[in-house]
């Protein structure tokens, strides 16, 4: 099992880690020549999950990988450590990441050369930094169990409004209500509601867009279809961290009694899929 690559976009990689670490600090990292995936799952059956996928070429260059499982390597990595290591090289030239071993502990070794002292100017002396992130290689069993959660087809798919607006609303609801209920229909409206014994707060978004289906315009989706899903407000807040990556669009798919699926696509061509299970 061998892996070696150059990280040429440490900032994006670091931000990605920072975003998804809210879901779970331990992340499954799947290294592959074409697409690299980050999978954060929580242990609970009804925990939230995020599956992030990025074209390997966007983050890495001179990617060399070899393994007995179709040249793919699955690792379990602690995200805060990894993010810290990667971000320390934001101003570095030549960041090389390698899978190595220290004793019996496998690790991702990142070596980089950073300019000492502040400011620009190529003549400054450089110092070398080596970061070692302990990782764990997944067993075949664990790899086999790595599946996208099974869900029915969503009836309602709607693009979310500006995440900044949503964040304010949800953070406000977080204060008093443990759950937020999302109600959306295919006519461009989305309602967020927070309920307690004494108080009900609703925020109405309208004129939202819907994805155009590839059905060749066979039939317009029925505007009266409405779906309601109730999710944990904290998890929704964690998802909203994705704002750090400046996503281009966020598609919210509601599957009744199952989950809220949020598909995020960013400028850097990173796609993230969040699964927020429905509650109650």
């Amino acid at each position, binding site marked *: 099992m061998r892996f070696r690559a150059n990280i040429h976009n440490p900032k994006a990689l670091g931000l990605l880690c920072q975003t998804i670490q809210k879901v779970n600090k331990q992340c499954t990292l799947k290294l592959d020549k074409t697409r690299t995936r980050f999978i954060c799952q929580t242990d609970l059956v009804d925990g939230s999950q995020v599956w992030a996928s990025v074209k390997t070429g966007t983050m890495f260059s001179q990617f060399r990988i070899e393994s007995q499982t179709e040249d793919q390597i699955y690792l379990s990595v602690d995200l805060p450590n990894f993010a810290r290591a990667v971000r320390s090289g934001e101003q570095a030239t030549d960041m090389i990441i390698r899978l190595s071993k220290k004793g019996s502990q496998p690790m991702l070794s990142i070596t980089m050369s950073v300019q000492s002292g502040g400011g620009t100017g190529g003549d400054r002396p450089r110092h070398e930094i*080596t970061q*070692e992130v302990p990782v764990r290689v997944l067993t075949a069993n664990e790899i086999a169990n790595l599946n996208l959660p099974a869900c029915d087809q969503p009836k309602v798919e709607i693009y979310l409004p500006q995440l900044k607006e949503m964040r304010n609303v949800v953070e406000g609801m977080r204060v008093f209500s443990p759950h937020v209920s999302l109600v959306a229909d295919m006519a461009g409206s989305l309602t967020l509601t927070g309920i307690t014994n004494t108080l009900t707060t609703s925020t109405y978004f309208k004129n939202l867009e819907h994805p155009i289906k590839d059905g060749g315009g066979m039939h317009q989706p029925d505007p009266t279809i409405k779906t309601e899903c109730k999710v944990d407000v904290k998890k929704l807040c964690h998802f909203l961290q994705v704002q750090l990556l400046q996503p281009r669009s966020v598609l919210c798919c509601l599957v009744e009694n199952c989950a809220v699926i949020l598909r995020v696509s960013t400028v850097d061509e990173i796609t993230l899929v969040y699964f927020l299970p429905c509650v109650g």
Partner: protein
Amino acid sequence: EMRAAIHDNGDIRRFAQSLRCLSKVGTELSIETTEDQLIFRSLNQSQSAYVHFSFHRKFFHEQSWRADDEPIKCRVNLKACLASFKAVSSMSCFVIDIRPDKMYLRFRIESASGLKRVYTFDFEQQSNVLQADFSRDLCPNVVVAPARLLSKCLSSFRAGLTEVTLIPKEEQLLIVSYSDAEAGNLQNQLQTESAIQRSAFHKYHVSPKFYNAEITFPVSELRAMLSFCEHKDEDIHLFFRATGDPILLSNNADGSAWCCADTIVATLQDDNDDEEEEQAATQQAMSQSQYVSSQASDSESLLDDHYQAAAAHNYHDRQQQQRQQQQHHHHHQQQQLRRQHDDNASMVSASSGDTHSMMSFDSRATAMSKKKQQQHRHQRPQNLNDSVSSDAPSSAASLSYDYTGGADKRYAGSKRRLAEQNTDHDDDDDDEDGDDEYDSYVEPTPQAATMSQYPDAKRSRNRY
């Protein structure tokens, strides 16, 4: 009695920074005035870190203490002192007043907006002052770097870093994150290693026999010193010896600056936990020492190798060993031998002149077995003029300090003080003009000497 004033905001900030640095180490500020210096000292609880700031009289714009004045020694609560510097950017004038007769320390601060504040702290008289018995002259190795450089370097280390290891090599200085294997969680911690090229330093004098020595110490004191030095964009000077010897962090090369900051930190002993290795090494050491006495000329190079081999632990292997061990054994003889080699002394007394060598180290202390702990406590000096005894094996003999007298005396409580003040107040008014307008406006703080009854209060109010 002593008074000094600073009129420049930049210098006031420096002063405040020094208090900040002191407060990161200890809880009490020990103040001493000498012929021409004002000295602040602080010691941490486990006596493994010692900070010493000395301000030359020229640092102050005005000072009233004279060379023949009786030296003042006292101790105040450090946090309280630091709290008076909250809004340091607006301060235009700072006056420090120490009155041993009245048992208080006073800060008078004027800000540019005209606001005047007076902070009064009562203190304990100290008839002895704790000083660490360690100096630059004892260190063959000096490394000088811009504080910014090391600061930047440390920023790439993991967030929960407590200890760091310096490893000087021929062409570079390695700074490595230190993980105490017993603290667990080795599998989850980010390990960082940073190598700074020799050319990045302003001075890099490391004697070859100390190459690959591992100097491990807590990073908080280093950070405190770095932030102090960075404030004025100064260089930080590191003076060190071998593994286990204290390291001196300083903002100046020779102690002659107007504002000198020195921090002495204990470093981790290089104790071998493996019993077999201990025995083997001891045997080796014994045979080596015999070699010494017989062949003086060749001995040095041989001993150097031995030393290097012993000191240059493979980082990984050592971690493995530590992980396997439950207890720490002490490699007294090996260390004794090492010290001898350093000093070219004979085998007989390892302790001569080496009063500085070892320092107790907190994390180790907790891991030690009870027996060792007792020994350790026993050794923590009540009578510090003795050098470290070579008989008692302990993982860390204490840093030797000089007490210049007996135990601290505690004066009677504030009541007595108050009585003194009331009776003395009249005299005061006559002596010092500046005092009046402030005295009656003193805020009663918990630390302040409560001055409630002023027979002359009316008079001063009118004046104001």
